[in-house]
């Protein structure tokens, strides 16, 4: 008898967890709208840029000669030719830059995380890396010009560009590698020491493999970033419409430099040869960087610590 009474009483009063005040509902709605709005505002220019590049650049991309020829044998208003020379330059300069920056940046990061502690050298290094990451690319380019060309008397070349890109890439590599090494739990280092493994071997065989997936991601992002840089190209190397494999002498094209050269010397009218070349090169650069990022994702998935 009492139990049924309790039952009816319980049903009569509203359930305790379903009462949400109108003020809370309003705040929730407002926050939801703001979050979605910010998201759309952030995404809109991205989609717009991507759409413009694809729509304007797609015309020449599907032709095989776009990928296998240079502009050496075609006139500036002649349809045909391709951007092979610029793709080679972009990849060579980027690769050379990575070959120098990655070991250097990784070693600096290892020093900062594993050996530096709070020492003065570590603090100074961190400060310098911070400053370097704030250096505008044109300043890096002029510095290399002053050092490489004015002081050493060496020619303008793709390699000089790589050197300027190194200055821009190192701080990014140091920063991302440092972050990845720091999130490797100290437990793992201690477990390794407790097995009688020396510190250097612990770093090589335990810490680096654990952080590797994140480090690869950071390096690839940095590489993609410097491959789109323009200022060092304008200062440190001449444009060549022919394929030039030699990083150390003569002009060497790259995609941003090609775009700038065409803009300065050729027609920009929509539908003209120059217009198609510029947007085609832009789309080519976007595709190359997208492929690099995709590769980075795949490789870091492969080396990431597995759960199952």
């Amino acid at each position, binding site marked *: 008898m009492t139990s049924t009474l309790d039952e009816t009483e319980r049903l009569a009063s509203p359930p305790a967890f379903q009462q949400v005040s109108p003020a809370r509902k309003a705040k929730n709605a407002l926050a939801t709208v703001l979050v979605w709005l910010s998201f759309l505002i952030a995404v809109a220019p991205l989609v717009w840029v991507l759409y413009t590049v694809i729509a304007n650049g797609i015309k020449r991309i599907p032709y095989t000669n776009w990928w296998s020829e240079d502009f050496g044998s075609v006139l500036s208003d002649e349809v045909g030719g391709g951007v092979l020379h610029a793709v080679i330059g972009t990849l060579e300069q980027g690769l050379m830059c990575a070959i120098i920056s990655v070991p250097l940046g990784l070693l600096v990061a290892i020093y900062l995380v594993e050996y530096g*502690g*709070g020492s003065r050298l570590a603090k100074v290094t961190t400060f310098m890396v911070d400053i370097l990451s704030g250096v505008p690319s044109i300043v890096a380019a002029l510095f290399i010009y002053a050092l490489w060309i004015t002081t050493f008397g060496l020619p303008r070349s793709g390699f000089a560009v790589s050197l300027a890109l190194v200055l821009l890439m190192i701080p990014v590599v140091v920063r991302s590698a440092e972050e990845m090494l720091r999130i490797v*739990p100290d*437990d*793992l*280092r*201690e*477990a*390794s*020491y*407790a*097995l*009688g*493994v*020396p510190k250097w*071997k*612990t770093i090589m*065989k*335990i810490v680096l*493999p*654990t952080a590797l997936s994140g480090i690869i991601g950071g390096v690839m992002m940095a590489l993609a970033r410097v491959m789109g840089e323009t200022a060092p190209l304008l200062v440190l190397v001449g444009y060549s419409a022919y394929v030039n494999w030699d990083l150390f002498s003569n002009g060497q094209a790259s995609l941003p430099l090609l775009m700038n050269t065409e803009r300065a010397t050729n027609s920009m009218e929509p539908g003209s040869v120059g217009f198609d070349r510029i947007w085609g090169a832009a789309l080519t650069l976007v595709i190359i960087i997208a492929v690099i990022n995709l590769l980075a994702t795949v490789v870091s998935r492969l080396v990431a*610590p*597995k*759960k*199952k």
Partner: protein
Amino acid sequence: MAKRIDVKDLDIYYGKFHAVDSVTLSVPPRSVTAFIGPSGCGKSTVLRTLNRMHEVVPGARVEGQVLLDGEDIYSSAVDPVQVRRTIGMVFQRPNPFPTMSIRDNVVAGLKLAGTKNGKKLDEIAERALRGANLWSEVKDRLNKPGGSLSGGQQQRLCIARAIAVRPDVLLMDEPCSALDPISTLAIEDLIAELKKDYTIVIVTHNMQQAARVSDQTAFFNLAGVGQPGRLVEINDTEKIFSNPSEKATEDYISGRFG
């Protein structure tokens, strides 16, 4: 194989902070010694000085002697890496290497020390896993990552990893504090077996555990916040839990403080 440990007038510091004051104790071979005491009293710190893991923390140092079968492990000629090969350690939280398979975790110490013979490593992995009572559970998935095991299995994997390098002494820093009662029981049984071959020192917050597994018990305490921890008394476990000589010990084990 098992060796005795003698600690003489050991003072432990973190930078300027005096963490533990003048500890003197002896651990006979093939026995289990438990360190008990309230949080912050320095028992884990003392444990970590026994295989020179203490100095991994920047600024940490010790004064005094730790003798392993009469040899001072803090003498200037001693290589801490060699000490740690002889005195293994199991930590509070299971910490298998995430990039390695179960088998590679077990033989990590040997592999990193340069042993390459795969067949020999397989044998050692099996022996160590049997020693840690884990073999039957993992023998069909030795190539799966260490992180795929449950917490209790991971901790036994870490014990297998520690005994695979055939140390003389095994230090355990609250090895069961992250485990459920069944896994705890498995590890306590394991300790009783390992005692036949190893000298074992275990830090624990669980007094029943200390009473169950250890032959002698050391009680640590500290006078107050900011004061160094100190060894109050060390004696046979039975004596400590039935008739301790110090009032503080009795208060602690009967639950009146701490």
